[in-house]
């Protein structure tokens, strides 16, 4: 190959390399930006008086005085809207049967939308479900509901070759001439007066229990469950992995048995996580009966099996990278093999071992599949430390999936889902960051 071609090749490789790094960075940005933006929105947002009332009633937090005065103001504006509703209801009584039936079917969605915005309307029975006991707690959601009050969504089916298109029809026109007509402009004008929006910092999002399947409240049960599962998995996998690595590097004689063990370990590292999930169900719960059904213990054991190969490998590499001279020095001083491992080799290998451990911890925190059948429930309260042997727990990874796909009111609580995603990403990033720092610190100490 002549110099010219070699240079061109070199340069194009450099370009391709740089290009792929830039693409990766951009992709990361595209993924992370909405996560961070929306996730932060679960803590910092414009909250309504409904949010403050909810916090006060359900969690006993908030400034009772301020809430009282704000509620009084809001109620004054709401009373006007309520009056329009009841006036119209009375008006319908006096209408012809035909007209009243027509209006009634159009009026029902308006009433429902009002109730969704403001909470139970006067005269309605107190709903059983917490989710219906309050109006909209977030300002942007309130605006969304206002839109539902103002407009009826209709579908345009005129062109059968394309998908039907949605279009808005102002309800004000449909109720023109009735006593309900002024409601629409009133609601539009006085939304803020009725809702009392206010910039809110809701740290409780991380520490509160969830109310009515995440409609209100926080994600503490998930955060705690994630920690329980990940740390539980480490409690099993870390010591076992380090011991296995010591065995592989210091004690195992090269041979058939050892190579079988080694390849088993490598294979295990490549097994899809859902397989571990099913294995965990079949082995830990059905066969070993570590618990009646799903439990943190069963989930932690399953996760432990999943991360074990990674820990073993990282520890093996760390141990092998310890200079042989340390071992010689220790043995030369009359140390036993075991003592040498404990007092010299493992301390010197510690940075690598810890890095592998924390990266595995992050993986255990993030995996969903292994805990579906073994530990995770979609709704539940935070469990006590004593319950880990028998109780399942919510966990971030599983609940993110649940909120995204299975939750009946998923579209109403996107902010909760984003908040969970951000929490999980932050936890994993923090763990990895602490691994890097810890490693640097120990390495520093070892280097002197």
């Amino acid at each position, binding site marked *: 190959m002549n110099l010219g071609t070699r240079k061109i090749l070199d340069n194009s490789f450099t370009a391709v390399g740089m290009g792929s790094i830039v693409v990766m960075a951009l992709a990361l940005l595209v993924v992370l930006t909405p996560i961070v933006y929306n996730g932060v929105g679960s803590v910092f947002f414009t909250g309504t008086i409904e949010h403050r009332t909810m916090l006060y009633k359900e969690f006993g937090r908030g400034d009772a005085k301020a809430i009282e005065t704000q509620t009084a103001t809001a109620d004054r504006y709401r009373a006007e809207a309520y009056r329009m509703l009841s006036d119209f209801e009375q008006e319908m009584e006096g209408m012809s049967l035909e007209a009243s039936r027509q209006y009634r079917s159009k009026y029902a969605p308006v009433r429902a939308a009002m109730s969704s915005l403001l909470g139970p309307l006067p005269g309605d029975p107190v709903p059983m479900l917490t989710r219906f006991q309050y109006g909209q707690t977030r300002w942007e959601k309130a605006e969304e509901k206002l839109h539902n009050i103002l407009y009826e969504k209709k579908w345009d089916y005129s062109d059968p070759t394309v998908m039907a298109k949605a279009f808005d029809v102002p309800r004000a026109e449909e109720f023109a001439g009735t006593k309900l007509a002024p409601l629409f402009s009133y609601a539009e004008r006085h939304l803020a007066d009725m809702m009392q929006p206010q910039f809110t910092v809701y740290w409780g999002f991380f520490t509160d229990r969830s109310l009515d399947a995440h409609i209100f409240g926080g994600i503490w049960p998930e955060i705690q469950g994630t920690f329980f599962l990940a740390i539980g998995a480490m409690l099993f996998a870390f010591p076992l992995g380090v011991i296995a690595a010591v065995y592989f590097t210091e004690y195992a*004689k090269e041979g058939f048995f050892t190579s079988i063990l080694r390849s088993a370990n490598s294979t295990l590292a490549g097994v899809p996580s859902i397989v571990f999930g099913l294995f965990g169900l079949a082995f830990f719960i059905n066969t070993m009966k570590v618990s009646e059904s799903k439990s943190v213990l069963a989930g932690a054991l399953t996760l432990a099996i999943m991360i074990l190969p990674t820990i073993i490998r990282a520890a093996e590499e760390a141990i092998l990278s310890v*200079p042989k*001279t*340390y*071992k*010689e*020095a*220790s*043995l*030369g*001083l*009359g*140390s*036993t093999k075991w*003592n040498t491992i404990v*007092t*010299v080799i493992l*301390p*010197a290998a510690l940075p690598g071992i810890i890095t592998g451990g924390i990266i595995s911890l992050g993986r255990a925190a993030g995996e969903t599949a292994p805990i579906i059948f073994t530990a995770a429930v979609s709704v539940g309260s935070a469990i006590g430390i004593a319950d880990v042997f028998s109780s399942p727990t919510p966990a971030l990874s599983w609940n993110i999936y649940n909120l995204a796909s299975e939750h009946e009111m998923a579209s109403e609580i996107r902010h909760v889902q984003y908040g969970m995603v951000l929490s999980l990403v932050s936890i994993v990033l923090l763990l990895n960051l602490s691994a890097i720092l810890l490693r640097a610190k120990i390495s520093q*100490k*070892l*280097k*002197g």
Partner: protein
Amino acid sequence: MTAEHKESAVEAQATATRDIYIPSERASVSGGGRPHVVAKDFSIYYGDFQAVKKVNADILSQYVTAIIGPSGCGKSTFLRAINRMNDLIPSCHTTGMLQFDGEDVYGKLTDEVLLRKKIGMVFQKPNPFPKSIFDNIAYGPRLHGMTDRKQLQAIVEKSLRKAALWDEVSDRLDRNALGLSGGQQQRLCVARTLAVEPEILLLDEPTSALDPKATAKIEDLIQELRGSYTIMIVTHNMQQASRVSDYTMFFYEGELVEYAETAQLFTNPKDRMTEDYITGRFS
């Protein structure tokens, strides 16, 4: 080729033709001179390869014995066999007899851990642990059950003094040993070995990684320790062998070609091969 027991000081035979310094007079060591390590038809193999061939020799106590020879002739292999460091190499095995204080080093009942406590080793490359200076020296004593801080402090100081390092590091015992210079690290390794109170010191090219100044310090140290310990030093530097040792073994391709009092071996070698080597005709 058992060396003869030395009683009197060696008279330097003035041999100005060779640029090797022969000490004019070496004091005999009182109480020394008994066969400390004895090899009888002792061979060492790596798999099928015989790296050390049927060595017969008595290493005399309290004296300094140098091992010289061209690279790859088996010097390190022989030295490491004495405290069984070769056990770390799975393919390595021995035949014949090697005795330490009359006991079979490779006997079935021999505890190699105990053996290594009595036969300390310092390696070619300084290899302090990535711990503090204090912990490095205290490593051995702690290993053998010493926990009392006062006692440990005493032994650390004593060992560092013996290794001529105390004055340089006494104010920073808690610093990481890897921060020391190469020469200091090597003396630290000597001190660490001395802290276990061994009977024999094995030094495998202890100065090959050091500059001349640090080398001189290590050589002085060996002179200091001579008489208190049986010392064996591998070196490819003949001047060094002549400077520090009382006896010299010359190995060539695994065979112990000549073993004699240092002065004699360098001034009046019996074997042609030895003569060729020390006059630099091959290396």
